[in-house]
């Protein structure tokens, strides 16, 4: 499994990816999705395995990095670390920042490694199952993915559905792939090739965050002092091992579902830790179990989210959507054939994720204090620099200035979407699934001779439709239950 990784080049890529991921995770507003999208153009100089190893190591380390800022300045470096603030910061305020970060580091590493094991065993099984899939099954699966986004994503399910549908709509811009007829191009030649993924991601994540930061300039962060990260004591291990294992399982499962991966996983991991705890009253006041529950779950979601990405070509989160784009750019087609034809490539990715989890443990343990200092870089210096990299990175992929303007447009749009409670993640997932949804629908209708009811005669497709219906009904049932 590790054999392809024993080259100095790949190890350097892994080291760089982990360090870069940690820095991105630590900086509030940035994160593995934005970082992955920004670094994607640079991966063009690398071979496919090194490129994906770089992206996956950023994903693993970036997800953990958010915990450092969550504990020390009460601001999650990434959305997935939001639940870590609830207990991490109160514990840090009690003078136990080292203990809080130690637990966050250990539980993140355990969660991450657990999820890689799930990935190694579960992804090939899912890939084998995918051989049974035809066009109607893939269509039903993509619909299931989108409805799951609405169901267990953050915020309003209907708003998530609108955002997902909008993402699919963006994917229809350009020449129709079946008939070559122009759609929504309005005579602009550059639009006939469609809207690229990178300008949309960088716009929705980096530029919209820049605009958000412009509204928060008077915000002052109070940083809690950190002497050193401490390994958890035996008592802490005894108290949290069940929570860590439970959250690792929850995180891996949530990760497999196409949704907002780590963010949702950490919230569920946290609430389940509270439900099973002998001291639920301690939650919110600096509970060590709360930190363990949230951190194990969000890092466990990384491996889980890679399962559908590699096995089916359907991203499990926004960051895996970027990784999926990386795979496609480098000519690697995810899906069942990948498992049969390029096992070395896959084992390289699995091994890289495993090593990245160990590396961020070491870097986090010994370097958290240093990484925390990165938050001292003022926004008025940092964000113009991020803008310069965003613009050049976006321009570089297809060397088109139109892409840069598209990025700015989506930046402004993303800001207002977030302001009014629309998550931007469904747009990304919708955009990447758009061609699959439309293509499989149209090809299915050709197979069925235009008879829509024929979808119901396919057992796997029917199962996904029923699951989609349940996924849509779930938020309604949940809100009714909450009202009662």
């Amino acid at each position: 499994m590790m054999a392809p990784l024993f080259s100095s080049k790949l190890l350097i890529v892994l080291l760089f990816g982990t360090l870069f991921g940690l820095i991105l995770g630590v900086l509030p507003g940035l994160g593995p999705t934005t970082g992955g999208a920004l670094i994607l153009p640079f991966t063009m100089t690398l071979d496919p395995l090194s490129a994906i190893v770089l992206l996956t190591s950023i994903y693993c380390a970036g997800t953990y990095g958010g915990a450092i800022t969550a504990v020390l300045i009460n601001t999650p470096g990434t959305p997935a670390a939001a639940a870590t603030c609830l207990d991490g910061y109160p514990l840090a305020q009690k003078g136990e920042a080292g203990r809080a970060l130690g637990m966050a580091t250990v539980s993140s590493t355990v969660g991450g490694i657990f999820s890689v094991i799930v990935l190694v065993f579960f992804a090939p099984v899912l890939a084998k199952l995918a051989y049974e899939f035809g066009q109607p099954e893939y269509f039903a699966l993509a619909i299931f993915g989108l409805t799951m986004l609405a169901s267990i994503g953050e915020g309003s399910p209907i708003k998530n559905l609108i955002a997902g549908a909008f993402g699919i709509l963006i994917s229809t811009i350009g020449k129709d792939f079946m008939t070559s007829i122009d759609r929504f191009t309005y005579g602009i030649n550059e639009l006939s090739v469609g809207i690229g993924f990178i300008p949309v991601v960088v716009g929705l994540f980096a530029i919209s965050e820049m605009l958000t930061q412009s509204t928060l300039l008077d915000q002052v962060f109070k940083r809690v002092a950190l002497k050193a990260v401490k390994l958890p004591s035996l008592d802490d291990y005894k108290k949290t091992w069940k929570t860590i294992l439970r959250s690792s399982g929850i995180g891996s499962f949530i990760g497999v579902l196409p949704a907002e991966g780590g963010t949702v996983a950490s919230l569920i991991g946290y609430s389940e830790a509270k439900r099973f705890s002998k001291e639920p009253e301690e939650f919110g006041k600096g509970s060590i179990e709360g930190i363990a529950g949230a951190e194990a779950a969000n890092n466990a979601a990384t491996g889980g989210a890679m399962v559908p990405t590699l096995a089916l070509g359907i991203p499990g989160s926004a960051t895996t959507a970027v990784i999926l784009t990386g795979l496609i750019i480098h000519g690697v087609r995810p899906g069942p054939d990948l498992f049969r034809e390029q096992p070395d490539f896959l084992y390289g990715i699995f091994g890289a994720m495993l090593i990245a989890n160990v590396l961020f443990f070491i870097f986090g343990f010994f370097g958290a204090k240093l990484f925390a200092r990165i938050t001292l870089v003022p926004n008025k210096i940092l964000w113009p620099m991020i803008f310069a990299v965003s613009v050049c990175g976006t321009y570089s992929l297809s060397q088109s200035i139109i892409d840069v303007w598209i990025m700015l447009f989506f930046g402004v749009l993303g800001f207002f979407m977030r302001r009014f409670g629309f998550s931007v993640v469904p747009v990304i997932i919708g955009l990447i699934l758009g061609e699959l949804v439309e293509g499989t629908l149209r090809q299915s209708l050709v197979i069925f001779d235009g008879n829509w009811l024929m979808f119901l005669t396919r057992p796997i497709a029917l199962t996904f439709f029923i699951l989609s219906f349940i996924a849509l009904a779930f938020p309604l049932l949940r809100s009714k239950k909450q009202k009662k």
Partner: protein
Amino acid sequence: MNNVHNKKRANKSLPFFFKDEFKVFFVIIFFSTILLISTFTFDKVPPILNRGIQPATFPKGLLVLIMFLTTTIYYLSFKNPWKKEKKLPKPFFLTILSFILFVIISKTLDFFLAISVLSIFVSYNWGEKRVFYLLLVGILFPLVVFIFFEMILGLRFPPGIITNLYYY
């Protein structure tokens, strides 16, 4: 909790067209309608070549779905009004202005000049008054980025008054 109630009440007392719910509803429905109308101008595939559905059918379906869901959230907002958002501060509008400046300068003068102007403009308006840091952000860093992309990725940036000095 009280604050949330106050915010909701404040939003409730506004005429409907000033409320965020209506603004969002109006903007989405307005643009969706325009896009929906434009789908009727898409070329049609002759029936003999048409496999499955016409190219315009899928986007039409999506737009109708978006309009239906938008109407649903607007209807639901009568029962549960959205909380009123804070007014946007001046730096936000200045940042948007810097984007417009960026587009104009990159189109008419130079891509890198546009990055420099935006960086200095944003940094200054976000509170950075020290000349050294403004130069660092506006000249040194974009220069490093330019050289990096040019040397390592072999990228050729669009011609302009400054970029041409390097290329010719």
